[in-house]
């Protein structure tokens, strides 16, 4: 296993095709399409076939877990993902400030 490729899921240089996103997350095509409309998923590039930033895999897997474990529909997934993203941004900011405080 030592030589397996590790693909960072936050690397914009490693785009993910729609088919790969569907397989890796368990989301349906229709759900991905709606999450794009809600602005939660962003398309990478403007080609004919859909392509996503690598970090979308993490978001999509989280969306599928929330759907399965809480019975959320697509608007619910979009709302939860938006709030979780916002919490993570605030936590990152908090961590940044804590780094500068005396212990």
């Amino acid at each position, binding site marked *: 296993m030592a*030589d397996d490729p*590790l693909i960072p899921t936050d690397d914009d240089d490693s785009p993910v095709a729609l088919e790969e996103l569907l397989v890796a997350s368990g989301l349906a095509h229709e759900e991905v399409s709606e999450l794009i409309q809600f602005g939660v998923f962003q398309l990478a590039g403007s080609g004919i076939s859909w392509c996503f930033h690598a970090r979308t895999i993490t978001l999509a897997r989280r969306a599928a877990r*929330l759907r*399965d474990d*809480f019975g959320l529909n697509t608007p619910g997934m979009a709302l939860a993902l938006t709030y979780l993203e916002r919490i993570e941004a605030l936590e990152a900011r908090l961590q940044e400030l804590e780094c*500068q405080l*005396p212990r």
Partner: protein
Amino acid sequence: MKFKDYYAALELERDADGDAIKKAYRRLARRTHPDVAKEPGAEERFKEISEAYQTLSDPEKRQAYDDLGRHRSGEEFSPPPDWESRFWREGNRQGSQPGSQPAGQEVDLADLFEQMGFGGSGGFAGSGGFGGTGGFGQQAGGFPVRGQDLEVIAELTLEQAAQGSEVAFTLSVPSCRADGGMTREPRSGTIRVPRGVADGERLRVPGRGGPGHGGGPAGDLFLEIRLKPHPRFRPLGHDLYLELPIAPWEAALGAEIELPTLTGTARVSVRPGMRNGQKLRLAGKGLPRRKEGAGDLYGVIQIVMPEQIGDRERELYRELAEASAFNPRPSFEGAPTHG
């Protein structure tokens, strides 16, 4: 087989109705779901809760569970003799008995209920799978099924993240036995984490998850990087922060200070007149980045006072107090103004 108390997991009495079971699941899942809760142990608790809910929310599975009788959690037990014939549909188990697993192969209660052919279980079946749970419900039938995705948390020291490191992991993965039954097998492996990872980063190894079934592809392995706390440095992305204590006279007069870096030491000049919280930046002395370069190291100035001072020092402070016209509290003077 070890008994699990599903009612206790959901904090319910045994006579709870379906509505109470659903409410208890939702209440507890909201508090412990791995995407929402960050407390230690929450993820394990969520697994218990969803396992209990998947059985108790299905009336037939619940009946089968209730007929196992009452045991203590963790107690070894065997199902009643006629239990299987009453609850298993013909063909679902392909001849294996719940109590007849080969020695050394532990049958998990959750796997047993998951295999029961009782039809739909109400829409909440957990599938995402932290640490290798779930995602294995649709194994029968011969059509290709993709293998399970596995999630591994890799804890690294800062030094390991800087240099790259081999990380060992062990997961408990459900798998099919030759007789069609199901068991959990420990799966261990090592993975080489390259230099340049940062705290919270997620990496994916395609095809290194659970094996596919019926010709389906293998799942993926997801690796989440967690950096262990370091006694000296605090990481933020690829930057490192270091508390840099200086004496009041060093702050006033400036100083040459040797400070530790991740790989050695570096000499820095502290300018005269430094204030608390000001940062000194050492470019490229943080964590290496994946492709090239590295983050920066920040020394955050902390002016510290000696706990005790001697007579001579006290005398000098008095002299300083008399000589200085510095007013540290100009904002206290006059009436406060807004904006």
